[in-house]
């Protein structure tokens, strides 16, 4: 199984992230860029919107399965987490 998540998942996650943050420039964010901290700056509000939409579109409850939310390190790790559960 691919560990980095399929390109379709990454593309869809970029779309969700852009919507959740209201920042069009994140449409080109790299899959290795940290989501927390400087750069993307995911916070409680945008993180909640992102997780809600991931649950709705992929049926994956990230927060329910991942106590430390490690899956939210980057778009790549999030895509891999989703792919492992939907493959």
């Amino acid at each position, binding site marked *: 199984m691919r560990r980095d998540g399929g390109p379709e998942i990454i593309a869809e996650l970029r779309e969700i992230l852009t919507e959740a*943050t*209201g920042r069009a420039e994140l449409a080109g964010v790299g899959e290795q860029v940290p989501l927390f901290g400087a750069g993307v700056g995911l*916070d*409680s*509000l945008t993180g*909640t919107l992102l997780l809600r939409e991931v649950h709705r579109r992929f049926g994956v409850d990230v927060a*329910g399965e991942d*106590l430390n939310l490690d899956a*939210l390190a980057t778009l790549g790790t999030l895509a891999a987490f989703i792919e492992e559960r939907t493959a």
Partner: protein
Amino acid sequence: MMIKCVIWDLDNTMLSGVYLESGSQPPPPDPAMVSVAAELADRGILHAIASRNPQEAAEYAEKATGLQFAAVECGWDRKSDAVSRIVADLAMAPDAVAFVDDDLYERAEVSFRVPEALVLSPEDMADAVGWAEFSPPVVTDEARRRGEMYAERRLRQEEARAFGGSRDEFLRYCGTRVSIGPATPGDVPRLHELSVRTHQFNSAGRGMTEAELAALTGSPAHRVATVRLHDRFGDDGLVGGSVVETAGDAWTVSLLMMSCRAMGRGVIEALLAWLARSAAQAGAATLAVPCLASPRNVPLRLALAGSGFRAAEGGTPDQPAAVFTRALDGPLPELPEWATAV
């Protein structure tokens, strides 16, 4: 369950008539409904509108009733969708809202699709002021100003949508100010209220009584902190707090809480950074936040993850308790520029 927001239909409910069928003169507000709503607003309960009408109907209702509405959904889709959007927008649990509509079909549709909501007719609403669901045990100054603060929030959100930059740029543009300081006895009622009202940002998953909080505020082995928030749109007052046991070289946060109204405004990150820095300054090696993980406090876990906290175990349905910890010897999270310790 205490009701935090009443979602009103307009035609033949908040208004004595049908907005679009009344010619040039829109129908006047129903005085009985306005007086109930005003009384509930005084108790800190919010109001919102879900109406099959153009947006102007809500603007008219706002002016004519003198009430402040925290959220407005005007349109022609299902009432249950409007109710769900308001619940999501205000970050509330569906069982914390009431829906009032004169139309039996609309009430049935909302009851069916949002079964947790309290669904009422205008006749039911007429004596709601006496009901337990609408009678919060404590009403603080912050609570009385809640409607006004949510109206300010609507303006802030409208600007944020048009703004386009990053969240931090927007917080600077708004002149955001977060001040963190020691709690005084006068803060105890509001801290108690926050401890019972907060769910998305409440680490303990339970409230603290005024007596407990008053004792902790005077205890040398504890530090109780308050967080206040304001910006150029308005003053949100006391929006968060923490209770810390400072014994030994491990500081333990027995309660960390924040009003969901302050979500997305850099407050929880500021509080976590301040706690980590204060603990490190006092010589502690670790900062621990025991947290009862639930689907409702995922926003708190996002803040903890973003501030470098990790839990070794817990967070499962059979073992919800988890202790989120971070070491204090490495680089510490920066206190954001909009935050000050007082």
